[in-house]
């Protein structure tokens, strides 16, 4: 995975991140800004590391889950994200927004995985080296409910089987990341440009196109 430098921003966490289970934690942790938590982590407070994970596990896992649509894989990528961020906490610079940094690491993990998967084999028609119909079928990309009958697949189908999530799944990964960061996580366009390392104009274009595609996917059955 590539190395990320923290993008610019302020010291607050995003609007939807919230504080999970705040009543169970010391007052100084529950009410502290991200910057303060990071400062405590750098000073060796282990509970500050726990707090960072608790604060961001849901938004980061949700983003990754919607990016890769595989619960176990999303959890692996989320774990990889947190380990990388927490072990690199000393390289974090407080003038940057912490939430943008952690979302950047998570998004890169998802995009790296999706690129690897695309190169490895998976396509709607099966692996490039598949020679028989059986080989093609066994290596083809499986979408949504067609994936199987395992309990995990059923859970994924229940969680991501709604019309809007199925429409999001049909977007290009770059569009998917933009639309999730903008309209689910509530990031400003400028922050998304920093998180994704894209020019601001490109982010605006991606989000505009993604919304058009989503409206088209959803339109026929909603009107």
């Amino acid at each position: 995975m590539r190395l990320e430098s923290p993008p610019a921003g302020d010291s607050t966490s995003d609007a939807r991140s919230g504080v999970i289970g705040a009543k169970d934690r010391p007052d100084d942790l529950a009410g502290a800004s991200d910057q303060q938590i990071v400062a405590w982590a750098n000073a060796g407070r282990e509970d500050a590391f726990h707090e960072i994970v608790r604060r961001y596990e849901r938004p980061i896992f949700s983003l990754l889950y919607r990016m890769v649509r595989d619960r176990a894989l999303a959890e692996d990528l989320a774990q990889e994200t947190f380990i990388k961020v927490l072990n690199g906490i000393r390289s974090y610079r407080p003038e940057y927004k912490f939430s943008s940094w952690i979302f950047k690491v998570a998004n890169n993990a998802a995009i790296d995985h999706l690129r690897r998967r695309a190169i490895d084999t998976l396509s709607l028609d099966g692996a490039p080296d598949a020679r028989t119909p059986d080989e093609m079928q066994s290596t083809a990309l499986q979408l949504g409910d067609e994936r199987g009958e395992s309990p995990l697949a059923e859970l994924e189908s229940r969680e991501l089987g709604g019309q809007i999530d199925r429409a999001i799944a049909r977007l290009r990964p770059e569009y998917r990341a933009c639309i999730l960061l903008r309209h689910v996580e509530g990031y400003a366009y400028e922050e998304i440009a920093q998180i994704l390392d894209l020019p601001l104009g490109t982010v605006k274009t991606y989000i505009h196109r993604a919304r058009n595609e989503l409206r088209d996917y959803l339109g026929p059955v909603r009107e």
Partner: protein
Amino acid sequence: MAMQNEPSTPHLTPAEFELWAEGLLDTTRTMHLADCAACLTTGERERRLLRELVQLPRFAPEFGFVERVMAHVRVPTPSGDFRAK
């Protein structure tokens, strides 16, 4: 000759549709929607889409996630070393 029902102001841009859906578009531009059925239809679809996106649920990883992460994290000591796990 001007077409009948042609709005007197330019159509809304994608950014303006987003602002309108969020209730943040200025009054002058909002007035355009009263004139333009096409923009009103697009705006209403946009508003429904954004509402659905905002309402998407958050998911949680499996129980014990924090502990699984922390098993791989080196906590620094004030002296700059790392605490042994």
